[in-house]
């Protein structure tokens, strides 16, 4: 999926779909949403802008490569990922500092049930016990390590990954999303979703095909 972390992170609202000819048949499948196919990056950017202006919240764009300006057209809020990474990095820096201060510069003892740890202030080549210059490599590495791990983990969490299945995978046209086609999917649980009206909107935006996707 495209990096649509912002669009999916909207508070859940009660799905309000009105019965339409295809979804009346409750016995078979439930409608997941409408999938619209576009042929060019320019087409999907202008279409995404219109869908955003129409007020839809539960929708996303899928493209074979990052499309310039698509995030802006979709109205995605700036990601909070950098702040999470900063927090992870600062945590790593503090861990590195405290760890070395405790082990190298103190004789503190910590009892925790069966676990006993102690600082071990040991004179090395006449340097002070609290030698900040020697700490810097470890502080640096732990800062980088936790930043990098934090960046990957939070990236996956914010994007709700890994996601092994998506209803769109059932659609034959959608296979070309990894090659040369661009898709907009508007989910049925969107409060503004009306089967006929949404289809009409997508068609009017220049979609080469609009198809139903069953959940």
């Amino acid at each position, binding site marked *: 999926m495209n990096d649509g972390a912002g669009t999916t992170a909207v508070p859940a609202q009660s799905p309000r779909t009105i019965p339409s000819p295809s979804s009346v048949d409750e016995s078979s499948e439930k409608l997941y949403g409408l999938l619209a196919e576009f042929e060019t990056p320019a087409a999907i950017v202008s279409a995404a802008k219109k869908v955003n202006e129409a007020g839809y919240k539960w929708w996303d764009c899928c493209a074979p490569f990052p499309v310039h300006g698509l995030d802006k057209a979709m109205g995605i809020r700036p990601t909070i990922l950098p702040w999470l990474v900063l927090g992870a990095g600062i945590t790593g820096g503090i861990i590195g500092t405290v760890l070395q201060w405790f082990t190298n510069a103190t004789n503190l003892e910590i009892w925790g049930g069966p676990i006993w740890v102690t600082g071990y202030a040991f004179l090395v080549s006449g340097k002070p016990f609290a030698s900040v*210059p020697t700490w810097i*490599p470890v502080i640096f590495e732990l800062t980088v390590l936790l930043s990098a791990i934090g960046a990957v983990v939070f990236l996956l969490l914010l994007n709700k990954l890994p996601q092994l299945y998506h209803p769109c995978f059932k659609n034959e046209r959608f296979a070309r999303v990894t090659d040369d086609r661009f898709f907009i999917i508007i989910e049925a649980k969107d409060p503004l979703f009306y089967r006929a009206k949404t289809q009409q909107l997508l068609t009017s935006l220049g979609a080469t095909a609009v198809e139903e996707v069953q959940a």
Partner: protein
Amino acid sequence: MNAAALAREDRYLGDLGPKLYVRLGGLGLGLIVVSLVLGFFVKDWDRFWRAYVVAYCFVVSICLGGLFFTILQHLTRAGWSVAIRRISEGLASNLRWLWILFIPIVWIVWTDSEGGLYHWTLGAAAMEEMGDAEGGLLAHKDAFLNPMFWTLRAALYFVIWFSLARYFVGNSIAQDGSGDPSITSRMQALAAPAMILYAFTQTFAAVDWLMSLEFAWYSTMFGVYFFAASCCGFGATMILLIYFLQRAGRVTESISIEHYHDMGKFLFAFGIVFWAYIAYSQYMLIWYANMPEETTWFMVRQLGSWKGLSLLLILGHFFIPFFFLLTRHTKRVKGVLAAAAAWMVAIHFIDMYWLVMPMVPVELVQSVDGDYAALVIAFQAPENAAYDLNWQLFDVTLLLGFAALMVAGTAFGLRSRSLVPEQDPRLAESLAFENY
């Protein structure tokens, strides 16, 4: 990007060019003359030539950064940077005449019988005769550190820099006229050997001109340190030049906030983080090994006011700009990034000053037998006051004079040239470039 506005934009210095290179050139020469007059009043010529080396290395480091950046773009076949590459070529083109300002330093090396600027110019024999403890050490380095070989090496650096600047700037300008894409291929093919030549000459120049000021001291990281510093000076100067060019109504469309953002990243990565990484690595190894002949260099930089200057570098060259430019938001506002760049140019000058100026006699350092507390006390004695930080007016006038000459030379190199490589095959890619 607006195609109509792009077609209308002013890509030539026009009447701004002569204004810049005549007035700033005159101002620069005038300030150097004023500095000489000030030197006559201060009568401390060793001190004056030190200030001259500081100002010279400040300017040459920035222009070398311009050459490095230009070669790097060809080496990596970069698309994003084409719209701003001409500005860095303008800075690099100064290497075609900067050797002229080096002649006074060569003259000092050949005529300075006191060894006031470069102590090794005394020669090992003379030092041993004078009972100088470092004489025996110099005897081992005589084959490398003697005026003749030193001058030949300097001549070689300037020939290589002259040729590289001439080749990469000249061909880029020739492409404006002919539009021949094979020029780009040729420059790419030559970029790799050019980068190797650049790395060697830049490293050796830093060792010859700066590290040999105290020939007994050595650091294997010194060349890289100078390289990181030159990237800092260059990146910041480049941002300022682009900012003021756009303020003057030139290249207002083709250079976008995306290019500012990327130059901000370059300054952040090379000039702030890489500099700190190298500066720390150099310090840590010497501090940890604790070899007397290595630690003296850092020891004198922890005495008196030099200590304050060292702390200023740690805070002002790393911690403050690091956190300030960490976020993309500060890099994407032209005025804010330009202010940060102005700060980095100033701190780069202080870095050069810090490299050259602290000259505490080795005898004083050795007299306390490694006792730092005793050295701090000895340093406070009135007769040692001259070795502490004492700003002279010619420090500033020489800096401003050299900087004015550098900007004038850049404007002269770009006179009647387009400020954008018009026919570069990747120009369209650069104009449409966007960051995520």
